[in-house]
């Protein structure tokens, strides 16, 4: 079976690898959101890594799909209601706060000293 559909098989495995990577990334960030203290985060991160590593040697694509779906369901269940977002990223507090001024405009920083000029 794997000889006739090799390209499809490898494409499917590559897609599964992408999904696993994105899931691991989001789960790790979620652990960082939940764990306030750094040592708790380290314990959680190593436990998450072991959960991912336990299923590392599965070869059947259907089992892998089911495991990924289970992982994404548990990630959706445990998502933090108030995640930390970097301020200037979309969703952060500084996002589009100060838009970039158009080019050619000169900005003279002399607030409070205008009368001296």
């Amino acid at each position: 079976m794997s000889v006739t559909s090799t390209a499809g098989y490898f494409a499917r495995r590559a897609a599964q690898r992408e999904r696993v990577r994105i899931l691991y990334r989001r789960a790790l960030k979620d652990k960082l959101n939940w764990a306030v203290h750094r040592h708790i985060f380290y314990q959680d991160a190593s436990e998450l890594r072991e959960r991912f590593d336990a299923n590392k040697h599965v070869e059947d694509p259907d089992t892998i799909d089911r495991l990924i779906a289970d992982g994404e369901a548990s990630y959706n269940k445990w998502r933090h209601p108030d995640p930390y977002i970097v301020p200037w990223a979309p969703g952060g507090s500084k996002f589009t706060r100060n838009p970039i001024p158009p080019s050619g405009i000169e900005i003279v920083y002399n607030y409070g000293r205008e009368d001296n000029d």
Partner: protein
Amino acid sequence: MAAAARSALLNHLRVHVQAVPRNPSYTLSFNAIRRRFLSEEVRGSFLDKSEVTDRVISVVKNFQKVDPSKVSANAHFQNDLGLDSLDAVEIVMALEEEFGFEIPDNEADKINSISLAVDFIASHPQAK
């Protein structure tokens, strides 16, 4: 009295913003000492590439699963350093925390080596 009238007048004047020509090297009398800030410089500063490389290499060396002697500026995470794809995700997260960054998910998958990471961080204006 003229000075008081002049200062009162100046307090109510509006200063027009004029577009300056592209060549910033013209001379002015008062502002020769004060540095002119054109709006291109407000857009954010890019980090120096050698400094970025040093910080990235130090982060990768502090990683537990990495042999510090193999880390060089051109090391590939999977080929040279023998890391897993999940380890690559962890390294990207450590770099995000180091530089105060946010890398979108589709870009983070493509960072597979130290040179790619350095290029990405050095070309992003908000890296601290």
